[in-house]
Protein backbone atom coordinates (compact mmCIF):
# COMPACT_ATOMS: atom_id res chain seq x y z
CA UNK A 1 0.00 0.00 0.00
CA UNK A 2 1.18 3.54 -0.77
CA UNK A 3 1.12 6.44 1.63
CA UNK A 4 -2.17 8.11 2.45
CA UNK A 5 -1.02 11.55 1.22
CA UNK A 6 1.27 12.45 -1.69
CA UNK A 7 2.85 15.86 -1.18
CA UNK A 8 5.36 17.58 -3.46
CA UNK A 9 7.44 20.41 -2.03
CA UNK A 10 10.14 22.73 -3.34
CA UNK A 11 13.08 24.11 -1.41
CA UNK A 12 16.20 26.19 -1.92
CA UNK A 13 19.58 24.81 -0.84
CA UNK A 14 19.79 26.91 2.34
CA UNK A 15 20.27 25.65 5.86
CA UNK A 16 16.88 26.91 7.01
CA UNK A 17 15.15 24.36 4.77
CA UNK A 18 16.35 21.83 7.38
CA UNK A 19 13.01 21.28 9.11
CA UNK A 20 11.34 20.45 5.76
CA UNK A 21 14.25 18.30 4.57
CA UNK A 22 14.48 16.38 7.85
CA UNK A 23 10.70 15.78 7.77
CA UNK A 24 11.17 14.00 4.45
CA UNK A 25 14.51 12.29 5.05
CA UNK A 26 14.19 11.14 8.66
CA UNK A 27 10.72 9.60 8.53
CA UNK A 28 8.61 12.28 10.25
CA UNK A 29 6.46 12.68 7.13
CA UNK A 30 6.20 8.93 6.54
CA UNK A 31 4.99 8.43 10.12
CA UNK A 32 2.10 10.80 9.37
CA UNK A 33 1.18 8.80 6.26
CA UNK A 34 2.84 11.23 3.86
CA UNK A 35 4.94 10.41 0.83
CA UNK A 36 6.89 13.69 0.71
CA UNK A 37 8.78 14.41 -2.51
CA UNK A 38 11.34 17.23 -2.23
CA UNK A 39 12.60 19.20 -5.23
CA UNK A 40 15.70 21.36 -4.94
CA UNK A 41 15.32 24.64 -6.84
CA UNK A 42 17.74 27.26 -8.15
CA UNK A 43 15.75 30.49 -7.64
CA UNK A 44 12.82 31.86 -5.66
CA UNK A 45 11.25 32.75 -9.01
CA UNK A 46 11.23 29.04 -9.91
CA UNK A 47 9.58 28.17 -6.60
CA UNK A 48 6.92 30.80 -7.28
CA UNK A 49 6.31 29.56 -10.85
CA UNK A 50 6.14 25.89 -9.89
CA UNK A 51 3.72 26.58 -7.03
CA UNK A 52 1.59 28.64 -9.40
CA UNK A 53 1.24 25.93 -12.03
CA UNK A 54 0.82 23.14 -9.49
CA UNK A 55 4.18 21.34 -9.73
CA UNK A 56 4.54 21.98 -5.98
CA UNK A 57 1.83 21.92 -3.33
CA UNK A 58 4.00 23.92 -0.97
CA UNK A 59 7.54 25.21 -0.56
CA UNK A 60 10.26 26.63 1.64
CA UNK A 61 9.83 30.40 1.11
CA UNK A 62 11.13 33.77 2.22
CA UNK A 63 8.76 35.09 4.91
CA UNK A 64 7.52 38.10 2.88
CA UNK A 65 7.26 36.15 -0.38
CA UNK A 66 3.69 34.82 0.12
CA UNK A 67 2.59 38.38 0.92
CA UNK A 68 4.21 39.61 -2.29
CA UNK A 69 2.33 36.87 -4.20
CA UNK A 70 -1.04 37.75 -2.67
CA UNK A 71 -0.50 41.51 -3.03
CA UNK A 72 0.11 41.06 -6.77
CA UNK A 73 3.75 42.22 -6.67
CA UNK A 74 5.12 39.32 -8.71
CA UNK A 75 4.12 37.78 -12.04
CA UNK A 76 2.58 34.34 -12.28
CA UNK A 77 1.87 34.23 -8.55
CA UNK A 78 -0.92 32.19 -7.05
CA UNK A 79 -2.62 32.78 -3.73
CA UNK A 80 -0.29 31.44 -1.07
CA UNK A 81 -0.83 30.99 2.65
CA UNK A 82 1.53 30.40 5.57
CA UNK A 83 0.48 27.82 8.16
CA UNK A 84 3.99 27.18 9.58
CA UNK A 85 7.20 29.08 10.13
CA UNK A 86 10.54 27.32 9.59
CA UNK A 87 12.43 29.13 12.33
CA UNK A 88 13.67 32.41 13.75
CA UNK A 89 16.90 34.27 12.94
CA UNK A 90 19.87 32.81 11.06
CA UNK A 91 21.03 35.80 8.96
CA UNK A 92 24.08 38.06 9.24
CA UNK A 93 25.42 41.21 7.62
CA UNK A 94 28.89 40.64 6.15
CA UNK A 95 31.17 43.33 4.71
CA UNK A 96 34.46 43.39 2.84
CA UNK A 97 37.79 43.78 4.63
CA UNK A 98 38.16 47.25 3.12
CA UNK A 99 34.81 48.42 4.53
CA UNK A 100 35.68 46.86 7.88
CA UNK A 101 38.94 48.84 7.95
CA UNK A 102 36.97 52.00 7.20
CA UNK A 103 34.45 51.23 9.94
CA UNK A 104 37.16 50.35 12.45
CA UNK A 105 38.67 53.80 11.90
CA UNK A 106 35.31 55.17 13.06
CA UNK A 107 35.05 53.12 16.22
CA UNK A 108 33.69 49.73 15.08
CA UNK A 109 34.74 46.79 17.25
CA UNK A 110 33.98 43.10 16.64
CA UNK A 111 31.05 42.79 19.08
CA UNK A 112 28.17 42.66 16.53
CA UNK A 113 26.39 45.51 18.33
CA UNK A 114 24.04 46.87 15.65
CA UNK A 115 23.98 50.47 16.93
CA UNK A 116 27.76 50.77 17.23
CA UNK A 117 28.40 49.06 13.88
CA UNK A 118 25.73 51.20 12.22
CA UNK A 119 27.21 54.43 13.58
CA UNK A 120 30.67 53.46 12.32
CA UNK A 121 29.30 52.45 8.91
CA UNK A 122 27.39 55.74 8.67
CA UNK A 123 30.52 57.75 9.46
CA UNK A 124 32.50 55.77 6.86
CA UNK A 125 29.78 56.26 4.23
CA UNK A 126 29.75 60.03 4.77
CA UNK A 127 33.55 60.15 4.65
CA UNK A 128 33.45 58.37 1.29
CA UNK A 129 30.70 60.66 0.01
CA UNK A 130 32.72 63.74 1.02
CA UNK A 131 35.66 62.33 -0.95
CA UNK A 132 33.38 61.91 -3.97
CA UNK A 133 33.57 58.12 -4.04
CA UNK A 134 30.79 55.85 -5.33
CA UNK A 135 28.19 54.67 -2.81
CA UNK A 136 28.81 51.27 -1.23
CA UNK A 137 26.95 48.44 -2.88
CA UNK A 138 25.16 45.87 -0.69
CA UNK A 139 23.48 42.68 -1.86
CA UNK A 140 20.42 40.84 -0.60
CA UNK A 141 18.86 37.65 -1.95
CA UNK A 142 15.51 39.02 -3.08
CA UNK A 143 13.63 42.32 -2.90
CA UNK A 144 10.78 40.69 -0.93
CA UNK A 145 12.95 39.08 1.72
CA UNK A 146 13.60 39.39 5.42
CA UNK A 147 17.20 40.15 4.42
CA UNK A 148 16.27 43.24 2.43
CA UNK A 149 13.90 44.54 5.10
CA UNK A 150 16.21 43.93 8.07
CA UNK A 151 19.21 45.44 6.28
CA UNK A 152 17.16 48.53 5.47
CA UNK A 153 15.69 48.68 8.97
CA UNK A 154 19.15 48.56 10.52
CA UNK A 155 20.64 51.19 8.24
CA UNK A 156 17.66 53.56 8.53
CA UNK A 157 17.64 53.28 12.32
CA UNK A 158 21.33 54.25 12.25
CA UNK A 159 20.62 57.35 10.16
CA UNK A 160 21.71 55.88 6.80
CA UNK A 161 19.32 56.22 3.86
CA UNK A 162 19.35 52.74 2.28
CA UNK A 163 17.81 54.04 -0.95
CA UNK A 164 20.26 56.91 -1.52
CA UNK A 165 23.41 56.51 0.51
CA UNK A 166 24.06 52.93 -0.56
CA UNK A 167 22.99 50.79 -3.51
CA UNK A 168 21.15 47.50 -2.93
CA UNK A 169 21.38 44.75 -5.58
CA UNK A 170 20.22 41.14 -5.80
CA UNK A 171 22.75 38.27 -5.73
CA UNK A 172 21.97 34.56 -5.22
CA UNK A 173 23.25 33.33 -1.81
CA UNK A 174 25.96 30.93 -3.07
CA UNK A 175 27.53 33.74 -5.16
CA UNK A 176 27.68 36.32 -2.35
CA UNK A 177 31.18 35.53 -1.08
CA UNK A 178 32.63 35.44 -4.62
CA UNK A 179 31.01 38.77 -5.48
CA UNK A 180 32.49 40.24 -2.29
CA UNK A 181 35.95 38.86 -3.07
CA UNK A 182 35.77 40.21 -6.62
CA UNK A 183 34.78 43.67 -5.35
CA UNK A 184 31.44 43.65 -7.22
CA UNK A 185 29.71 44.25 -3.87
CA UNK A 186 30.93 45.75 -0.58
CA UNK A 187 28.65 43.87 1.76
CA UNK A 188 25.58 41.67 1.98
CA UNK A 189 22.82 40.33 4.18
CA UNK A 190 22.22 36.59 3.77
CA UNK A 191 21.52 33.43 5.76
CA UNK A 192 24.20 31.02 6.88
CA UNK A 193 26.53 29.45 5.82
CA UNK A 194 27.26 32.22 3.31
CA UNK A 195 28.53 34.67 5.95
CA UNK A 196 30.86 32.23 7.68
CA UNK A 197 32.05 31.21 4.21
CA UNK A 198 33.40 34.73 3.58
CA UNK A 199 35.03 34.85 7.02
CA UNK A 200 36.64 31.44 6.51
CA UNK A 201 38.00 32.59 3.15
CA UNK A 202 39.48 35.67 4.83
CA UNK A 203 37.57 38.05 2.56
CA UNK A 204 34.97 39.51 4.91
CA UNK A 205 33.82 40.42 8.41
CA UNK A 206 30.45 39.75 10.01
CA UNK A 207 29.33 43.07 11.50
CA UNK A 208 25.92 42.25 12.90
CA UNK A 209 23.31 39.49 12.94
CA UNK A 210 19.56 39.23 12.57
CA UNK A 211 19.28 37.83 16.10
CA UNK A 212 20.58 41.16 17.45
CA UNK A 213 18.67 43.43 15.06
CA UNK A 214 15.35 41.88 16.10
CA UNK A 215 15.50 39.08 18.63
CA UNK A 216 13.68 35.88 17.64
CA UNK A 217 12.41 37.35 14.41
CA UNK A 218 10.78 35.54 11.47
CA UNK A 219 12.75 34.27 8.45
CA UNK A 220 11.66 31.36 6.19
CA UNK A 221 8.18 29.89 6.15
CA UNK A 222 6.19 27.11 4.54
CA UNK A 223 4.18 28.71 1.74
CA UNK A 224 1.21 26.62 0.64
CA UNK A 225 -0.86 27.02 -2.51
CA UNK A 226 -4.21 28.07 -1.06
CA UNK A 227 -6.22 26.02 -3.56
CA UNK A 228 -4.33 22.87 -2.54
CA UNK A 229 -4.74 23.63 1.18
CA UNK A 230 -8.48 23.92 0.69
CA UNK A 231 -8.70 20.68 -1.34
CA UNK A 232 -6.45 18.69 1.00
CA UNK A 233 -7.01 19.81 4.62
CA UNK A 234 -6.11 16.39 6.02
CA UNK A 235 -2.86 16.16 4.06
CA UNK A 236 -1.93 19.66 5.21
CA UNK A 237 -2.68 18.88 8.88
CA UNK A 238 -0.62 15.69 8.63
CA UNK A 239 2.26 17.64 7.12
CA UNK A 240 2.13 20.29 9.87
CA UNK A 241 2.35 17.52 12.48
CA UNK A 242 5.32 16.01 10.65
CA UNK A 243 7.04 19.41 10.47
CA UNK A 244 6.37 19.96 14.18
CA UNK A 245 8.10 16.69 15.11
CA UNK A 246 10.91 17.41 12.67
CA UNK A 247 11.47 20.91 14.10
CA UNK A 248 11.61 19.57 17.65
CA UNK A 249 14.23 17.05 16.52
CA UNK A 250 16.24 19.73 14.68
CA UNK A 251 16.34 21.93 17.81
CA UNK A 252 17.88 19.16 19.96
CA UNK A 253 21.68 19.71 20.22
CA UNK A 254 22.12 15.91 20.43
CA UNK A 255 21.00 15.66 16.78
CA UNK A 256 23.31 18.31 15.33
CA UNK A 257 25.78 15.91 13.75
CA UNK A 258 23.07 13.79 12.16
CA UNK A 259 21.20 16.85 10.86
CA UNK A 260 24.41 18.29 9.41
CA UNK A 261 25.11 14.94 7.72
CA UNK A 262 21.64 14.94 6.12
CA UNK A 263 21.99 18.53 4.92
CA UNK A 264 25.50 17.82 3.61
CA UNK A 265 24.09 15.46 0.95
CA UNK A 266 24.38 16.73 -2.60
CA UNK A 267 20.64 16.85 -3.14
CA UNK A 268 20.08 19.19 -0.16
CA UNK A 269 22.47 21.88 1.07
CA UNK A 270 25.46 20.00 -0.35
CA UNK A 271 28.07 21.57 1.93
CA UNK A 272 30.22 19.73 4.50
CA UNK A 273 29.02 19.55 8.13
CA UNK A 274 31.85 21.77 9.38
CA UNK A 275 30.46 24.83 7.57
CA UNK A 276 27.01 24.19 9.08
CA UNK A 277 28.30 24.36 12.65
CA UNK A 278 28.04 28.15 13.14
CA UNK A 279 24.29 28.13 12.49
CA UNK A 280 23.80 24.96 14.55
CA UNK A 281 25.80 26.16 17.55
CA UNK A 282 25.41 29.95 17.36
CA UNK A 283 29.18 30.32 17.70
CA UNK A 284 30.38 32.63 14.94
CA UNK A 285 33.81 33.59 13.74
CA UNK A 286 33.55 37.27 12.86
CA UNK A 287 36.81 37.73 10.96
CA UNK A 288 40.19 38.93 12.21
CA UNK A 289 40.26 36.19 14.86
CA UNK A 290 37.20 37.38 16.80
CA UNK A 291 34.62 34.78 17.89
CA UNK A 292 31.28 35.23 19.62
CA UNK A 293 28.45 33.06 20.94
CA UNK A 294 25.06 34.41 19.86
CA UNK A 295 22.05 33.50 21.92
CA UNK A 296 19.06 32.43 19.80
CA UNK A 297 21.14 32.81 16.63
CA UNK A 298 18.89 30.37 14.76
CA UNK A 299 15.85 28.84 16.44
CA UNK A 300 14.08 26.06 14.52
CA UNK A 301 11.57 25.08 17.24
CA UNK A 302 11.83 26.74 20.67
CA UNK A 303 10.15 30.08 21.46
CA UNK A 304 7.08 29.10 19.41
CA UNK A 305 9.38 29.41 16.38
CA UNK A 306 6.95 27.55 14.13
CA UNK A 307 3.87 29.60 14.99
CA UNK A 308 2.86 31.81 12.03
CA UNK A 309 2.29 35.03 13.98
CA UNK A 310 0.05 37.55 12.25
CA UNK A 311 2.25 40.23 13.80
CA UNK A 312 5.20 38.83 11.77
CA UNK A 313 3.22 38.98 8.54
CA UNK A 314 2.02 42.49 9.36
CA UNK A 315 5.52 43.72 10.22
CA UNK A 316 6.75 42.53 6.81
CA UNK A 317 3.79 44.42 5.32
CA UNK A 318 4.80 47.65 7.12
CA UNK A 319 8.27 47.33 5.56
CA UNK A 320 6.81 46.71 2.10
CA UNK A 321 4.88 49.95 2.54
CA UNK A 322 7.91 51.74 3.96
CA UNK A 323 10.12 51.00 0.97
CA UNK A 324 7.47 51.64 -1.65
CA UNK A 325 6.77 48.02 -2.61
CA UNK A 326 3.05 48.39 -1.93
CA UNK A 327 0.54 51.11 -1.02
CA UNK A 328 -1.02 51.07 2.44
CA UNK A 329 -4.73 50.54 1.84
CA UNK A 330 -7.40 48.72 3.88
CA UNK A 331 -7.56 46.06 1.13
CA UNK A 332 -3.82 45.41 1.14
CA UNK A 333 -3.75 45.35 4.93
CA UNK A 334 -6.49 42.70 4.91
CA UNK A 335 -4.53 40.62 2.37
CA UNK A 336 -1.42 40.81 4.58
CA UNK A 337 -3.39 39.89 7.68
CA UNK A 338 -5.02 36.88 6.01
CA UNK A 339 -1.78 35.50 4.55
CA UNK A 340 -0.38 33.93 7.74
CA UNK A 341 -2.73 31.28 9.11
CA UNK A 342 -2.27 30.47 12.82
CA UNK A 343 -5.75 28.89 12.75
CA UNK A 344 -4.43 26.07 10.53
CA UNK A 345 -1.41 25.59 12.80
CA UNK A 346 -3.65 25.42 15.86
CA UNK A 347 -6.15 22.97 14.43
CA UNK A 348 -3.41 20.62 13.18
CA UNK A 349 -1.37 20.61 16.40
CA UNK A 350 -4.02 20.92 19.10
CA UNK A 351 -4.70 17.15 19.12
CA UNK A 352 -1.02 16.58 20.01
CA UNK A 353 -1.32 18.62 23.23
CA UNK A 354 1.31 21.03 21.90
CA UNK A 355 1.89 24.32 23.72
CA UNK A 356 -0.02 26.95 21.76
CA UNK A 357 0.12 30.73 22.23
CA UNK A 358 -3.03 32.34 23.58
CA UNK A 359 -3.21 34.96 20.79
CA UNK A 360 -2.58 35.06 17.02
CA UNK A 361 -0.54 38.26 17.17
CA UNK A 362 1.75 39.84 19.72
CA UNK A 363 3.22 43.25 20.36
CA UNK A 364 6.67 42.79 18.78
CA UNK A 365 9.46 44.22 20.89
CA UNK A 366 7.49 44.09 24.14
CA UNK A 367 9.33 41.12 25.67
CA UNK A 368 12.70 42.23 27.03
CA UNK A 369 13.53 38.80 28.46
CA UNK A 370 12.43 35.22 27.79
CA UNK A 371 8.96 35.00 29.26
CA UNK A 372 6.76 32.01 30.12
CA UNK A 373 3.29 32.69 28.78
CA UNK A 374 -0.14 31.30 29.43
CA UNK A 375 -0.89 28.81 26.72
CA UNK A 376 -3.34 26.07 25.98
CA UNK A 377 -2.31 22.84 27.68
CA UNK A 378 1.45 23.03 28.07
CA UNK A 379 4.16 25.49 29.01
CA UNK A 380 5.56 27.89 26.46
CA UNK A 381 8.40 30.41 26.63
CA UNK A 382 8.42 33.37 24.25
CA UNK A 383 10.99 36.02 23.40
CA UNK A 384 12.85 38.13 24.05
CA UNK A 385 11.61 39.77 20.86
CA UNK A 386 13.11 43.27 21.03
CA UNK A 387 14.25 45.46 18.12
CA UNK A 388 17.77 46.82 18.66
CA UNK A 389 16.53 50.41 18.52
CA UNK A 390 13.91 49.86 21.21
CA UNK A 391 10.95 50.35 18.85
CA UNK A 392 7.69 48.54 19.54
CA UNK A 393 5.43 47.19 16.80
CA UNK A 394 1.85 46.91 17.99
CA UNK A 395 -0.19 45.36 15.15
CA UNK A 396 -3.32 47.01 16.56
CA UNK A 397 -1.67 50.40 15.99
CA UNK A 398 -0.37 49.66 12.51
CA UNK A 399 -1.43 52.99 10.98
CA UNK A 400 0.55 54.91 13.60
CA UNK A 401 3.56 52.60 13.12
CA UNK A 402 3.53 53.09 9.35
CA UNK A 403 3.04 56.85 9.71
CA UNK A 404 5.99 57.02 12.12
CA UNK A 405 8.42 55.20 9.81
CA UNK A 406 10.90 57.31 7.93
CA UNK A 407 12.22 56.38 4.51
CA UNK A 408 15.72 56.85 5.91
Amino acid at each position, binding site marked *: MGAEHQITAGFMPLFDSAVLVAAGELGFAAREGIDLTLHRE*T*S*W*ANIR*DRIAIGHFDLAHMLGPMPLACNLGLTPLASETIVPFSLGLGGNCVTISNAVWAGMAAHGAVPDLDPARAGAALGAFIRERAAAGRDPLRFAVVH*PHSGHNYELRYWLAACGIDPSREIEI*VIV*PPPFMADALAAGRIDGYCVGEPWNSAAVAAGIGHIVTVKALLWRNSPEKVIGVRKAWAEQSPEALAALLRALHHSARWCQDPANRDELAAVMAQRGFLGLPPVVQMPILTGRLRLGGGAELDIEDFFVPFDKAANFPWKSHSLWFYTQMVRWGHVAHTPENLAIARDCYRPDLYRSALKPLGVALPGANAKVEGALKVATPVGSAGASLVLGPDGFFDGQIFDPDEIDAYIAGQSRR
Partner: protein
Amino acid sequence: MIRTSLAVLVIDENRIRASIIEAGLREAGHERVTVIHDVSGIARRIAEIEPDVIVIDLENPNRDMLENMFQLSRAVKRPIAMFVDRSDQASIEAAVDAGVSAYVVDGLRQERVKPILDMAVSRFNAFSRMARELEEARSELESRKVIDRAKGILMKSRGLTEEAAYTLLRKTAMNQNRKISDIAQSLVTAAGLLGPAEDE
Protein backbone atom coordinates in the same frame (compact mmCIF):
# COMPACT_ATOMS: atom_id res chain seq x y z
CA MET B 1 3.17 49.18 -42.22
CA ILE B 2 6.47 47.34 -42.04
CA ARG B 3 7.06 45.46 -38.85
CA THR B 4 10.57 45.82 -37.53
CA SER B 5 12.01 42.50 -36.47
CA LEU B 6 12.13 41.79 -32.76
CA ALA B 7 15.39 41.87 -30.86
CA VAL B 8 15.67 38.60 -28.94
CA LEU B 9 18.11 38.00 -26.10
CA VAL B 10 18.77 34.38 -25.09
CA ILE B 11 20.31 33.93 -21.61
CA ASP B 12 21.45 30.34 -21.13
CA GLU B 13 24.57 29.01 -19.41
CA ASN B 14 24.31 25.88 -21.55
CA ARG B 15 26.11 26.82 -24.75
CA ILE B 16 24.84 23.92 -26.84
CA ARG B 17 21.22 24.53 -25.93
CA ALA B 18 21.62 28.27 -26.48
CA SER B 19 22.98 27.70 -29.96
CA ILE B 20 20.13 25.31 -30.77
CA ILE B 21 17.63 28.01 -29.81
CA GLU B 22 19.54 30.68 -31.67
CA ALA B 23 19.50 28.54 -34.82
CA GLY B 24 15.76 27.96 -34.42
CA LEU B 25 15.06 31.66 -34.08
CA ARG B 26 17.18 32.49 -37.12
CA GLU B 27 15.44 29.81 -39.18
CA ALA B 28 12.14 31.41 -38.15
CA GLY B 29 13.36 34.70 -39.59
CA HIS B 30 14.58 36.45 -36.45
CA GLU B 31 17.81 38.12 -37.38
CA ARG B 32 18.44 40.15 -34.25
CA VAL B 33 19.30 37.34 -31.83
CA THR B 34 21.92 37.73 -29.10
CA VAL B 35 23.08 34.87 -26.86
CA ILE B 36 24.59 35.47 -23.41
CA HIS B 37 26.07 32.64 -21.34
CA ASP B 38 27.40 34.67 -18.44
CA VAL B 39 25.25 37.26 -16.69
CA SER B 40 28.08 39.40 -15.35
CA GLY B 41 27.71 42.91 -16.75
CA ILE B 42 24.32 42.02 -18.15
CA ALA B 43 22.71 45.38 -17.33
CA ARG B 44 25.08 47.08 -19.77
CA ARG B 45 24.42 44.46 -22.45
CA ILE B 46 20.66 44.92 -22.08
CA ALA B 47 21.10 48.68 -22.44
CA GLU B 48 23.02 48.09 -25.68
CA ILE B 49 20.78 45.40 -27.16
CA GLU B 50 17.43 46.84 -26.03
CA PRO B 51 15.78 43.43 -26.38
CA ASP B 52 12.07 43.09 -27.02
CA VAL B 53 12.04 39.53 -25.77
CA ILE B 54 14.35 37.80 -23.28
CA VAL B 55 14.38 34.00 -23.17
CA ILE B 56 15.95 32.48 -20.04
CA ASP B 57 16.48 28.95 -18.77
CA LEU B 58 14.90 28.13 -15.42
CA GLU B 59 18.04 26.45 -14.11
CA ASN B 60 19.74 29.83 -14.11
CA PRO B 61 20.36 30.75 -10.47
CA ASN B 62 20.39 34.44 -11.42
CA ARG B 63 16.69 34.59 -12.23
CA ASP B 64 15.85 36.54 -9.06
CA MET B 65 18.58 39.06 -9.84
CA LEU B 66 17.39 39.38 -13.45
CA GLU B 67 13.72 39.83 -12.55
CA ASN B 68 14.66 42.55 -10.09
CA MET B 69 16.85 44.24 -12.67
CA PHE B 70 14.13 44.16 -15.34
CA GLN B 71 11.88 46.11 -12.98
CA LEU B 72 14.30 48.55 -11.46
CA SER B 73 17.50 49.11 -13.36
CA ARG B 74 18.09 52.43 -15.05
CA ALA B 75 19.95 50.48 -17.70
CA VAL B 76 16.67 48.87 -18.74
CA LYS B 77 14.97 51.76 -20.46
CA ARG B 78 11.68 50.05 -21.13
CA PRO B 79 9.95 48.04 -18.39
CA ILE B 80 10.20 44.31 -18.98
CA ALA B 81 7.61 41.92 -17.62
CA MET B 82 7.37 38.20 -17.47
CA PHE B 83 5.51 36.60 -20.33
CA VAL B 84 2.25 35.84 -18.62
CA ASP B 85 -1.12 35.54 -20.16
CA ARG B 86 -3.62 34.06 -17.77
CA SER B 87 -5.81 32.98 -20.65
CA ASP B 88 -3.03 30.77 -21.93
CA GLN B 89 -2.31 28.57 -18.92
CA ALA B 90 -1.32 25.65 -21.14
CA SER B 91 1.44 27.66 -22.75
CA ILE B 92 2.79 28.76 -19.36
CA GLU B 93 2.77 25.18 -18.12
CA ALA B 94 4.52 23.95 -21.23
CA ALA B 95 7.24 26.53 -20.73
CA VAL B 96 7.86 25.72 -17.07
CA ASP B 97 7.76 22.00 -17.87
CA ALA B 98 10.36 22.52 -20.56
CA GLY B 99 12.48 24.63 -18.21
CA VAL B 100 12.28 27.99 -19.95
CA SER B 101 10.70 31.36 -19.34
CA ALA B 102 10.33 34.51 -21.39
CA TYR B 103 10.20 38.17 -20.51
CA VAL B 104 8.90 40.82 -22.88
CA VAL B 105 8.93 44.61 -22.98
CA ASP B 106 5.75 46.37 -22.06
CA GLY B 107 3.21 46.81 -24.80
CA LEU B 108 4.49 44.10 -27.11
CA ARG B 109 1.55 42.25 -28.63
CA GLN B 110 1.12 38.69 -27.50
CA GLU B 111 0.81 37.17 -30.97
CA ARG B 112 4.26 38.46 -31.85
CA VAL B 113 5.83 36.86 -28.77
CA LYS B 114 4.05 33.53 -28.58
CA PRO B 115 5.81 31.95 -31.58
CA ILE B 116 9.15 32.79 -29.97
CA LEU B 117 8.17 31.19 -26.69
CA ASP B 118 6.74 28.15 -28.51
CA MET B 119 9.98 27.81 -30.43
CA ALA B 120 12.02 28.01 -27.24
CA VAL B 121 9.82 25.41 -25.55
CA SER B 122 10.11 22.92 -28.39
CA ARG B 123 13.89 23.41 -28.66
CA PHE B 124 14.31 23.02 -24.89
CA ASN B 125 12.33 19.79 -25.03
CA ALA B 126 14.35 18.54 -27.99
CA PHE B 127 17.55 19.34 -26.12
CA SER B 128 16.39 17.44 -23.01
CA ARG B 129 15.49 14.45 -25.18
CA MET B 130 18.89 14.55 -26.84
CA ALA B 131 20.68 14.84 -23.49
CA ARG B 132 18.68 11.91 -22.13
CA GLU B 133 19.48 9.76 -25.16
CA LEU B 134 23.16 10.61 -24.88
CA GLU B 135 23.12 9.69 -21.20
CA GLU B 136 21.40 6.39 -22.00
CA ALA B 137 23.93 5.62 -24.73
CA ARG B 138 26.78 6.46 -22.37
CA SER B 139 25.48 4.25 -19.58
CA GLU B 140 24.77 1.46 -22.08
CA LEU B 141 28.41 1.59 -23.15
CA GLU B 142 29.54 1.59 -19.52
CA SER B 143 27.38 -1.48 -18.77
CA ARG B 144 28.80 -3.33 -21.73
CA LYS B 145 32.33 -2.63 -20.56
CA VAL B 146 31.66 -3.84 -17.04
CA ILE B 147 29.90 -6.99 -18.31
CA ASP B 148 32.95 -7.76 -20.45
CA ARG B 149 35.21 -7.42 -17.42
CA ALA B 150 32.95 -9.65 -15.30
CA LYS B 151 32.92 -12.29 -18.06
CA GLY B 152 36.71 -12.15 -18.13
CA ILE B 153 36.92 -12.71 -14.39
CA LEU B 154 34.57 -15.73 -14.57
CA MET B 155 36.37 -17.22 -17.56
CA LYS B 156 39.69 -16.98 -15.78
CA SER B 157 38.71 -18.02 -12.26
CA ARG B 158 36.18 -20.73 -13.16
CA GLY B 159 37.55 -21.83 -16.48
CA LEU B 160 34.33 -21.04 -18.35
CA THR B 161 33.85 -20.23 -21.99
CA GLU B 162 32.70 -16.69 -22.77
CA GLU B 163 29.21 -17.93 -23.53
CA ALA B 164 28.96 -19.89 -20.29
CA ALA B 165 30.24 -16.93 -18.30
CA TYR B 166 27.54 -14.72 -19.81
CA THR B 167 24.86 -17.33 -19.15
CA LEU B 168 25.92 -17.52 -15.52
CA LEU B 169 25.72 -13.75 -15.16
CA ARG B 170 22.28 -13.65 -16.78
CA LYS B 171 20.94 -16.51 -14.64
CA THR B 172 22.19 -14.87 -11.46
CA ALA B 173 20.61 -11.57 -12.46
CA MET B 174 17.28 -13.28 -13.14
CA ASN B 175 17.34 -15.17 -9.83
CA GLN B 176 18.08 -12.01 -7.89
CA ASN B 177 15.74 -9.85 -9.94
CA ARG B 178 18.55 -7.41 -10.79
CA LYS B 179 20.12 -6.06 -13.95
CA ILE B 180 23.00 -8.00 -15.52
CA SER B 181 25.14 -4.86 -15.36
CA ASP B 182 24.51 -4.61 -11.60
CA ILE B 183 25.58 -8.22 -11.04
CA ALA B 184 28.62 -7.64 -13.23
CA GLN B 185 29.54 -4.51 -11.27
CA SER B 186 29.25 -6.41 -7.95
CA LEU B 187 31.48 -9.16 -9.29
CA VAL B 188 34.11 -6.72 -10.56
CA THR B 189 34.09 -4.86 -7.23
CA ALA B 190 34.33 -8.11 -5.23
CA ALA B 191 37.16 -9.40 -7.40
CA GLY B 192 38.99 -6.12 -6.90
CA LEU B 193 38.62 -6.44 -3.13
CA LEU B 194 39.47 -10.13 -2.85
CA GLY B 195 42.39 -10.73 -5.10
CA PRO B 196 45.12 -9.22 -7.18
CA ALA B 197 43.75 -7.22 -10.07
CA GLU B 198 42.42 -9.68 -12.64
CA ASP B 199 42.96 -7.72 -15.76
CA GLU B 200 45.07 -4.69 -15.02
